[in-house]
């Protein structure tokens, strides 16, 4: 994988390191892929969100394991066991609030990560498979979060699970069978809760596996950058350590301040009050809403009066992302040099926010109309605007190299810029 001129770090000369590395080259891997790994010199703070997402995955797995040790996956005991965690387990409230709010933080981080990819064209050649793997991770995250939300067995857990699993009944012929198979019975009940718990515990490890593939694909061609142009030589890159390790560490501390604010001072804000009521199959909540991070998709689902149509649109809204590298016909990656795309990017962001708002409201009147208009815009963005923009847009001139805008052209600049690569 290492295509750059790799010079081993000093620690590689240690005799124990050498002994191990000769048999299992784990230190070479660390040195090549984490320490000396060349990264574009111009990455901004939006490039922090990949490592933040990875750290959130670890936070969720660790807090989740401790919750699972005290959780009882049965309809009779789930709600009370969660309350026992909150009240009687030492620091149980802390672990639970980290896990609950961690899910929201994970999605915020991943949404910013995805939007960064959209803005800077990170999905384009040669990173299409890297992009696909990201979408797969996103889908797995959605499934994991959905099943996790069912486990506390509150009112929204139960009714959310009922609504979402029922979606599959929209498919002709096989639909009803799929739903029975998902439930393991004739309604959302104890077998459903059991399997959701088992799968909720399994999925994060599947995610971790796909994350490794995502990183592998990333490290073949390296990170994209705010200019969206390829690195031309060593002057364009700096070693990952210490430059990006320290930058990521600073970003992580800032992110944890926001995370800690929610955990300690506002732990219920991002959740729905109804989920603190134990599930009751006989009482339907006034209106059933998913967690905030699913609201845009919920709005797409409800945009058409036809159930099957809504389900297809909802799945389509994510499936279309797989085609994005070919729907975007522009050869220029970064929106910085695409004046027209930049406008459409922000319109797309507004469109997603409008979908989220519409998803939180009852599906009638103005919210329904907003949801429908935004749904149409969402698909137009990918199917019409992006292909046409590539043809009609006149991109701004690209800089000759990543180093040029900061160091100026010419040989002197090149020499000065090679220094960092030799340092460290």
């Amino acid at each position, binding site marked *: 994988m290492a295509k750059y001129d790799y010079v081993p770090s000093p620690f590689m000369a240690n005799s124990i390191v050498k002994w191990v590395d000769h048999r299992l080259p784990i230190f070479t891997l660390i040195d090549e892929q984490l320490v000396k790994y060349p990264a574009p*010199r*111009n990455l*901004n*703070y*939006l490039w922090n969100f990949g490592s933040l997402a990875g750290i959130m995955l670890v936070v969720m797995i660790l807090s989740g394991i401790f919750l699972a040790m005290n959780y009882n996956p049965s309809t009779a005991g789930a709600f*009370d066991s969660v*309350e026992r965690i*909150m*009240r009687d387990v030492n620091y149980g*409230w*802390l672990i639970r*609030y980290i896990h609950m709010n961690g899910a*929201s933080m994970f999605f*915020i981080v991943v*949404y*910013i990560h995805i*939007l*960064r990819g959209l*803005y800077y064209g990170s999905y384009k050649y040669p990173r299409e498979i890297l992009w696909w793997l990201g979408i797969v991770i996103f889908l797995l995250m959605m499934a994991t979060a959905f099943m996790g939300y069912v486990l506390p067995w509150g009112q929204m857990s139960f009714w959310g699970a009922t609504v979402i699993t029922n979606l599959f009944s929209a498919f002709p012929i096989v639909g009803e069978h799929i739903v029975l198979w998902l439930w393991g019975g004739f309604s959302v009940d104890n077998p459903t809760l059991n399997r959701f718990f088992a799968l909720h515990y399994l999925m994060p490890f599947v995610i971790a596996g796909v994350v490794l593939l995502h990183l592998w694909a990333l490290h073949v061609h390296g990170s994209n950058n705010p200019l969206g142009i390829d690195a031309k030589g060593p002057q364009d890159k*700096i070693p990952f350590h210490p*430059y990006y390790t*320290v*930058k990521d*560490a*600073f970003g992580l*501390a*800032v992110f*944890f*301040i*926001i995370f*800690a*604010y929610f*955990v*300690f*001072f506002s*732990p*219920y*804000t*991002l959740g*729905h*009050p*109804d989920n*603190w*009521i134990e599930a009751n199959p006989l009482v339907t909540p*006034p*209106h059933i809403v998913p967690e*905030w*991070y699913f*609201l845009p998709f919920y709005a797409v689902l409800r945009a058409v009066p036809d159930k099957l149509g809504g389900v297809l649109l909802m799945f389509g809204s994510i499936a279309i992302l797989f085609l994005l590298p070919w729907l975007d016909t522009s050869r220029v990656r970064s929106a910085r040099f695409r004046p027209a795309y930049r406008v459409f990017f922000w319109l797309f*962001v507004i469109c997603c*926010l409008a979908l*989220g*708002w519409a998803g*939180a*409201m009852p599906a009638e009147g103005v919210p329904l109309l907003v949801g429908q208009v935004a749904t149409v815009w969402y698909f137009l963005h990918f199917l019409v605007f992006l292909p046409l923009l590539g043809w009609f847009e006149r991109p701004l001139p690209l800089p000759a190299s990543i180093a040029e805008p*900061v*160091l100026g052209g010419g040989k002197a600049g090149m020499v000065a*810029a090679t*220094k*960092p690569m030799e340092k460290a």
Partner: protein
Amino acid sequence: MRTAKLLIASVLAFGLGLGAASAAEAPKPPAQKWAHTGFFGTFDRAELQRGFQVYKEVCAACHAMHQIRYRNLAGIGLSEAEIAAIAKEYEVTDGPNDEGEMFQRPARASDRFKSPFPNQQAARAANGGAYPPDLSLIAKNRVGGENYVYALLTGYKETPPAGVTLMDGMYYNDWFAGHQIGMAPPLSDDRVTYADGTKATLAQQARDVSVFLAWAASPHLEARNSLGVKVMIFLIILAGLLYATKRKVWRDIKH
């Protein structure tokens, strides 16, 4: 950087805005001033104990608090002896014993609060079909939390506004979803007599029991606040140090 800030701000605003938006089901109760809100909030022990008295003498006739055990009352400042004395007032079913019989015994500190009804059906049957909800988590599972509890308890109107006809056995309340509530006004002036001499006005009792229920829903609130402040201070200092380190490391890199 400008884009980064915009992006983060809009995504956060999105998340937070929706939290508020999902609260659209019932009128939002006005926020009261509580001692336990804010970064340094703590519960007033005297208020908690008065609130427990209101629950015990009034609410507990119909409303269970399944998640609370007598020993938890240490959190409102009661001593072990006081807790044991309170528990002993209740008879709970235990068993089976060696003869296979269930038997009655006085409650212990480790027992859950005794529920007024053996099951939900019995609770409904005794209350004209309306189920008096469990109060353990009422300050978390209603929009507005303890503000809602206070608003509801003080929000009864003897005569409904013009044009509203109440159904049989219902009462008008400004803050209940749909305004028709099956619970008769539970509190009135001097419904309880406070041992500490506080004047038991309707508003005072409503306030005290709201605080008690807020504590019952979040008994670790004080631990949460005090640890939270420490964690925040730590993280802010850490972020500052890391920022300085980042500046130093990046000093020679033009970017």
